[in-house]
C-alpha cells in the first residue's frame, strides 16, 4: 500500500504538489479512488487523496450551473440536483461496479478527469462538453483557474477541454464548475426485439436521424438483454434494441407513437415507462450487463471501442467470435463494450487491428494491473501525436509528478 497525503484544502494541495515536484516524487491523484483500475497502472509513489476537498459550493438552480470541490461524491451532487428536478445532462457512468467496487462511490473530479459520459452522449456530449471551469494546481506547482460560470467563452486556449479526459496527468483539479439542466419530465423507451446487430445499427441510425429527438439508442444482444433487471427486457428472450425519448409528457407520448410508426415492421415493438426506462439506461450507462459484474477478479476483460456506428457491428462480431467474447452497443452503435475471456495480452493486437480498420480506437477499460502495465490501455498514438502529447504534458508538469504513466508510458 502506498503512503498517502490527504490535503484538506487547495492550499495544501499546492503545498503537496510543490513538494513532490521539488523531490521528483510521483503522485497518484485520487478523487475517491473508485476508478483506480482505469488507465495504466501508475508508477509507484505517494498517493494524493483529495477526499478532503468535498462539498457543493455554489448552486442556485436557476443559474444552471453548479460549483463543487473536486472530490464531492457524485451521489451527493445527484441528490441535490434531484431535489430541484435538475440533472447533469451528460449522465456520467458510474464505473465503480465494473471495477469491482460499490455503486455511487465516484467523485465529480474523477468523472471529469476521465471524461465520462452516458447513453445521452449522442445528443448532449460527454463530461467535457458540460465542464465550464475549474481551479487547479499544475505540475509546476502553480494555482490556476480557467473558464468560469458562463456557457461560452473564447478566452484563449481551452484549458477545460484539455483537463477533461487527461486522467490527472496535467493538473490536480481542486474545484470544478459544470452545467446543470432541468431533468426531463417524462422518459419512455421504445424497444425493438430480435434484431441482429447490423440491422440494429441501421434501426438506431434511423431513429437518431428522425425528427423525434431521440436521446439515446442502444442495442443489447440476447445474452446482455437476459441479464437486465427490467423484466420486459430480460424476458424478451432475444436481442433488444432500445430507443429513448425524454421531455414534457405530451411531447414524449407523441414522439413515442411516431417512432413506433417509423420502426414498424423491423421487429416486435414494446415500450418502457419512466421507472423501467431509468433502470435500463442505468444498466447500459454503467456497463453492468456484460455478465461479469461486481468484482469478479477472474472475470472477463472489458474493452471500450469507439467506432463509426455503421462499422461497429462488423468489427465487434468478428472480435467476439475470435476472442470468446460478447458485445453491447450504445451511442447508436458508436460505442461498443466488448467483454472477452481474460488472456495475458487482452487480445490487444486483434482488437486494435479490427478497430483501426473500422476507423476508430479502443481503450482497455478493465484488466488486471499486470495486464494494464504490459498492454497499451489507450489507443497508441502515431509518432507525431505522441510527441505533441508529451510536449503538452511537459508544459503542465515538467517534472512528471502527476499520475505519470497513467495514460501513456513516460507521459
Amino acid at each position: 500500500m502506498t503512503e498517502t497525503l490527504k490535503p484538506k484544502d487547495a492550499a495544501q494541495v499546492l503545498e503537496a504538489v510543490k513538494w513532490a515536484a521539488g523531490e521528483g516524487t510521483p503522485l497518484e491523484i485520487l478523487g475517491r479512488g473508485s476508478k483506480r483500475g482505469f488507465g495504466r497502472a501508475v508508477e509507484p509513489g505517494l498517493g494524493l487523496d483529495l477526499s478532503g476537498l468535498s462539498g457543493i459550493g455554489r448552486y442556485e438552480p436557476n443559474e444552471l450551473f453548479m460549483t463543487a470541490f473536486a472530490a464531492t461524491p457524485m451521489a451527493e451532487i445527484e441528490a441535490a440536483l434531484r431535489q430541484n428536478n435538475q440533472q447533469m445532462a451528460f449522465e456520467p457512468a458510474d464505473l465503480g461496479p465494473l471495477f469491482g467496487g460499490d455503486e455511487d462511490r465516484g467523485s465529480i473530479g474523477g468523472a471529469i478527469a476521465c471524461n465520462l459520459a452516458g447513453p445521452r452522449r449522442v445528443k448532449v456530449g460527454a463530461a467535457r462538453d458540460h465542464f465550464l471551469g475549474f481551479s487547479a494546481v499544475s505540475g509546476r506547482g502553480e494555482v490556476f483557474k480557467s473558464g468560469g460560470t458562463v456557457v461560452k467563452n473564447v478566452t484563449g486556449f481551452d484549458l477545460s477541454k484539455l483537463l477533461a479526459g487527461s486522467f490527472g496527468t496535467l493538473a490536480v483539479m481542486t474545484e470544478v464548475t459544470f452545467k446543470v439542466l432541468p431533468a426531463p419530465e417524462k422518459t419512455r423507451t421504445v424497444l425493438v426485439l430480435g434484431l441482429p446487430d447490423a440491422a440494429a445499427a441501421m434501426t438506431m441510425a434511423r431513429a437518431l436521424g428522425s425528427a423525434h429527438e431521440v436521446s439515446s439508442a442502444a442495442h443489447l444482444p440476447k445474452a446482455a438483454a437476459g441479464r437486465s433487471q427490467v423484466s420486459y427486457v430480460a424476458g424478451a428472450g432475444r436481442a433488444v434494441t432500445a430507443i429513448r425519448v425524454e421531455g414534457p409528457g405530451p411531447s414524449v407520448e407523441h414522439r413515442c407513437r411516431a417512432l413506433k410508426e417509423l420502426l414498424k415492421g423491423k421487429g416486435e415493438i414494446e415500450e418502457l415507462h419512466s421507472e423501467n426506462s431509468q433502470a435500463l439506461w442505468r444498466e447500459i450507462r454503467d456497463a453492468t450487463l456484460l455478465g461479469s459484474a461486481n468484482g469478479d477478479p477472474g472475470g472477463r476483460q472489458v474493452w471500450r471501442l469507439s467506432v463509426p456506428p455503421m462499422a461497429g457491428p462488423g468489427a465487434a462480431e468478428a472480435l467476439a467470435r475470435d476472442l470468446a467474447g460478447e458485445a453491447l452497443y450504445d451511442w447508436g452503435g458508436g460505442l461498443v463494450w466488448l467483454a472477452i475471456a481474460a488472456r495475458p495480452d487482452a487480445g490487444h493486437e486483434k482488437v486494435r487491428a479490427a478497430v483501426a480498420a473500422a476507423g476508430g480506437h479502443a481503450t482497455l477499460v478493465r484488466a488486471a494491473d499486470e495486464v494494464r502495465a504490459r498492454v497499451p490501455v489507450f489507443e497508441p498514438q502515431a509518432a507525431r501525436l505522441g510527441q505533441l502529447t508529451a510536449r503538452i504534458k511537459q508544459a503542465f508538469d515538467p517534472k512528471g509528478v502527476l499520475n505519470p504513466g497513467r495514460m501513456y508510458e513516460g507521459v
Partner: protein
Amino acid sequence: MTAKTARVNDDLIRALRAVVGDRVSTSAVVREQHGKDESYHPPHPPDAVVFATTTREISDVVKICAGRGVPVVPFGAGTSLEGHVAALKGGVCIDLARMNAILSVNAGDMDVTVQAGVTRKQLNEHLRDMGLFFPIDPGADASLGGMAATRASGTNAVRYGTMRDNVLALTVVLADGRVIRTSRRARKSSAGYDLTRLFVGSEGTLGVIAELTLRLYGIPEAISAAVCPFPDLKSAVETVILTIQSGVPVARIELLDEVQMDAINRYSKFDYPLQPTLFFEFHGSERGVVEQVETVKGIAADCGAGDFRWATKPEDRNRLWQARHDSYYACLALRPGAKALATDVCVPISRLAECILETRRDIDQTGLLAPILGHVGDGNFHVVVVMDMNDATEVARCKAFNERLVMRALAMDGTCTGEHGIGYGKIDFLTVEHGDAVSVMRAIKMALDPQNIMNPGKIVRV
C-alpha cells in the same frame, strides 16, 4: 524590399516561389488587405502573402519560415474583430481562401471534411440538397478554418453549440511544418488529450488548420421564425432568461434594442416597431415546434410582449436572418465613414438582465451611438459602439465604456469575450480575467511553438 523583419528578404521570396509559383505577393495592396480585419484596429500588413492550395504547400511554406524564424499569420476571410490577423511582427501571411474544396460528405455518420478556406455559406449551399446543414453562423461569411481558429459561434448556439462542439477532427500544420491529424473519424474519438479542442480557439498561434471534419445536422422537419416587440428591454431580457431556464430547446433567440431595430429597418428595409425586440427560431418536428412556440408565447405574454409576427416562408426567414447577420453593417451605416468597436461580454444567464440594463444606462449617460444586440440565449450580447476614428477623445470615451462593460461582466462572473476572441485587442483583459491561466497558456505556446513564429503577439505575449 523593405520588410518588418530582416529575415524576410528576396531569398525567402524565391524559396516561397519554388513552392507556390506566382501565388506569392508582396504588392502593397495585397499586403494591406491582409493586415486588417473588419474592426477599428489599425492595419499591420504582413511582408508577403502566400495563397496556398494544398496542405502540402502550407507545410512547405511553414517549414521555410520556421527555418528562418519568420512569423506566419494564417488568414481565412479576415472578418475577425480583435486584430487577429494583424501581422504585428511582419512575416508571411498564408491566405487559405483558395483551399475551398469540400472533400467528403458522409451522410450516414453526419459529418463532412472540408479544406479550411470553405466558407460557412458555401458549405450550406453544398449540403442543402442532401437535407443537411451546418449550424454555426457568425454574421460574416467567415471561413470554416477561421471559425475553428476563433472558436466562433452565432445565432444557433443555444441549440447546436459553438465551433467547440462541432469540430470532430482537424488536420493541422504545426509550427515546424509537420502535419498532424488530431483524431480519427469515429465521432467520440478522443483518445488521449483533446488536441482537437486545443487547436479550436487557438487563433493561429499553435499551427495552421488545413482541413476540418465537422459535425452535420439534418434540416429540421419544421422551422418557424418570429419577431416579437417588447415594451422595454427588461421584459425582453426576462423572457429570454425564463425561456432558457425552462429548458425549451429554442434554436435562436436574439435581442435587438430599439436603436438596433432602427438601424436594421433602414438598412434592410423593414418596418418593425422601434421597440426592444426578440427574434426567435424554433426547430424540431411539426409537433415539437408547436409545443415550443406555445411555451415561449406564454412566457413572453406574461412578460408583457406584443404580438408575434411570423416568418413562415423560407424566403421570409432568410431575409430576417440575413438582416440580423447584417446588423453590424446596419450600425456602421448609421454614421457613414465611422468604424465600430463591437463589445462581446458574456454573463451567466441569471445576471443577464442586470448586465444589459446597467450597460444601457451607461450608454445613455455617456451619450454614445451604441446599439445593443446579441445571442442572448447564452448570456452573450454585443454593443456596437460606432465611433469616428479621427476624434481621439471620442475613441477614448468608447474604449473607456468598453472597459467598464468588461469589468461589469467580470464582476458578475462573466467573461470579456463570448465569441470574438482575444486577438491582440483583448490581451490585457485576458490577463485581468485569468491572470494565472495566462502563464499556463504561455507554457503551452512555448511547448508547441518554441520560436514564437505562429501569429505572434496574439492571445499571449511571449
